[in-house]
């Protein structure tokens, strides 16, 4: 996803002289084409993220379209106050791009994990929170974010994730994309879990349970119309995210459910537990340990689906 981001921002900067890229001493060689073509619009702001975020806000308030880029924890929690005050309170169109969402940098330890960022940023008034599901969505998300008049947080993975979309889907912030149809359960995924959600759907097919897969790339503003559809058309809705089960996509959907006048279908939240992950190893390993691999998710979905079905039959 990060290569898609780097290519797309060069493309967008060529078409819009207001686009400026600020990086927190990261992306060695990644931005060479951008630096080469737009030297006066690239700023390595050093390992000083608080200042970088406010500088971007100052640029945006002067009419530029700054994009701020570094690893998720450093472009979110490290400078949360600057995002809250200088970006959101002033409501200026800064685009914040975090690389290494969730457990992408599992091996670097919990300092580099990001399982709280969606929750924290969606609390901020006016902030859009977008978690693209693959490289295609990453390009489209950046394009869309730069057309907004309010700030946007884009949370991407790292590199080499599977491509889900063969063609550009109709991508709009706040509008989910149905990636696969299925009548029994709805798997609502955000961010880099989208390929896994599709794997889960394949595994469920083998058990004769048919899953719709939705890329809920925008966590805020949440697509209420799609939620209304999946909760009326499926017996079970499953939120899937590489993020804490607290406050992220699952939390957002749980809030939505509690606001409905009628009881909704059952919600199962798949995410990371409310604890730090201490072990070394790869992202694949960390996901397995935390139940975020396709097999573990499919097993939990089947259990919930059967239990939801037996409740329905008993009532």
């Amino acid at each position, binding site marked *: 996803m990060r290569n898609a981001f780097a290519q797309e921002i060069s493309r967008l900067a060529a078409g819009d002289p207001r686009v400026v890229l600020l990086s927190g001493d990261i992306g060695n060689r990644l931005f060479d084409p951008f630096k080469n073509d737009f030297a006066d*619009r690239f700023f390595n702001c050093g390992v000083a993220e608080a200042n970088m975020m406010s500088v971007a*806000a*100052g640029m945006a308030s002067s009419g530029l379209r700054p994009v701020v880029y570094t690893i998720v924890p450093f472009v979110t929690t490290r400078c949360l106050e600057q995002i809250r005050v200088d970006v959101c309170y002033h409501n200026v169109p800064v685009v914040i791009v975090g690389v290494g969402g969730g457990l992408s940098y599992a091996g670097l330890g919990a300092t580099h994990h990001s399982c709280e960022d969606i929750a924290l940023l969606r609390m901020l008034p006016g902030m859009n929170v977008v978690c693209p599901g693959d490289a295609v969505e990453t390009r489209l998300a950046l394009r869309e974010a730069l057309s907004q008049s309010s700030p946007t947080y884009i949370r991407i993975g790292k590199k080499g994730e599977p491509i889900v979309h063969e063609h550009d889907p109709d991508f709009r912030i706040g509008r989910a994309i149905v990636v696969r149809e299925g009548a029994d359960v709805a798997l609502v995924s955000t961010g880099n879990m989208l390929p896994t959600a599709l794997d889960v759907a394949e595994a469920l097919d083998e058990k004769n349970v048919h899953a719709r897969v939705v890329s809920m790339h925008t966590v805020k503003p949440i697509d209420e119309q799609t939620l209304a559809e999946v909760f009326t058309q499926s017996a079970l809705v499953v939120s899937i995210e590489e993020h804490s089960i607290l406050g992220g996509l699952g939390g957002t959907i749980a809030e939505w459910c509690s606001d409905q006048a009628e009881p909704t279908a059952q919600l199962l939240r798949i995410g990371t537990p409310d604890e730090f992950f201490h072990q070394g190893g790869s992202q694949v390993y960390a996901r397995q340990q935390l139940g975020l691999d396709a097999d573990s998710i499919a097993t939990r979905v089947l259990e919930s689906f059967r239990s939801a079905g037996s409740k329905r039959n008993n009532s």
Partner: protein
Amino acid sequence: MSTIVFMAKRSTTDVKTLEAAARRIRGRLVRMSHEAGAPHLGSALSCVDLLVALYWNFLKIDVEKPMALERDRFILSKGHAAAALYATLAERGVIRDELLRTYGQDGSSLPEQMSPGCAPGVEAATGSLGHGLSLGLGMALAARIEGRPSRVAVVLSDGECNEGSVWEAAMLAAAQNVERLVAIVDYNRWQATGRSNDVLALAPLADKWRAFGWDVHEVNGHDISAVSEILRRVPTSTGNPTAVIAETTKGRGVSFMEDDNNWHYRIPNAEEVEAATRELGLA
């Protein structure tokens, strides 16, 4: 075409006029604090002469169109002294007296600390310290990218220099040779609960800015002519940003408030307002 109001040459001839304006601003501040029950009067009085030097002798702003794109930008980063900016903008004719009179009242668009766009001439909602210099740096870089002549001035408090983000901004501004940026530190040697040189090791403050790559000037921050003279050198020919270490007195202009840190929070009563007004020669 609108008139750009810029009076760079007038500081020496009109210094008495400017000092009178500063006294009127101080008189407004004492009354505003009393009427709104708003604290931070000592901090506001401390920076009045800096604001007068900026608004009469440095900032290119069109009073009729204070938010025109070509304008110079000013950020009062010590947001707790917002009243000083409001009163200066009123004295300068950018905002109306009727608006100023609502300061701090229920439903007023002029809160005790600025909200975004709360009045023409307010570039940033400060109040959380350590944000303004970074915002100003962003504005200065934007002007450079877009080829605008805009310069950016930021007034910080000495206590504010506790914030690490100030020094992050200082390093980036020097690295980027932002010669159109000027930071003015209102060095009254007090912060909320103690001497600013004791709470953290602030001194030697001028040396710190110099070591961070800035052109540094130390000046009596109540000498409007001297401050104006330094500001005239911005943008610098060295390519460095400019730091002005302005030696000031907290509570300046009212004898019983000067250098008394109780006035960081105290609100003057009616008798004190009267006494202050008399001292300022406004009675």
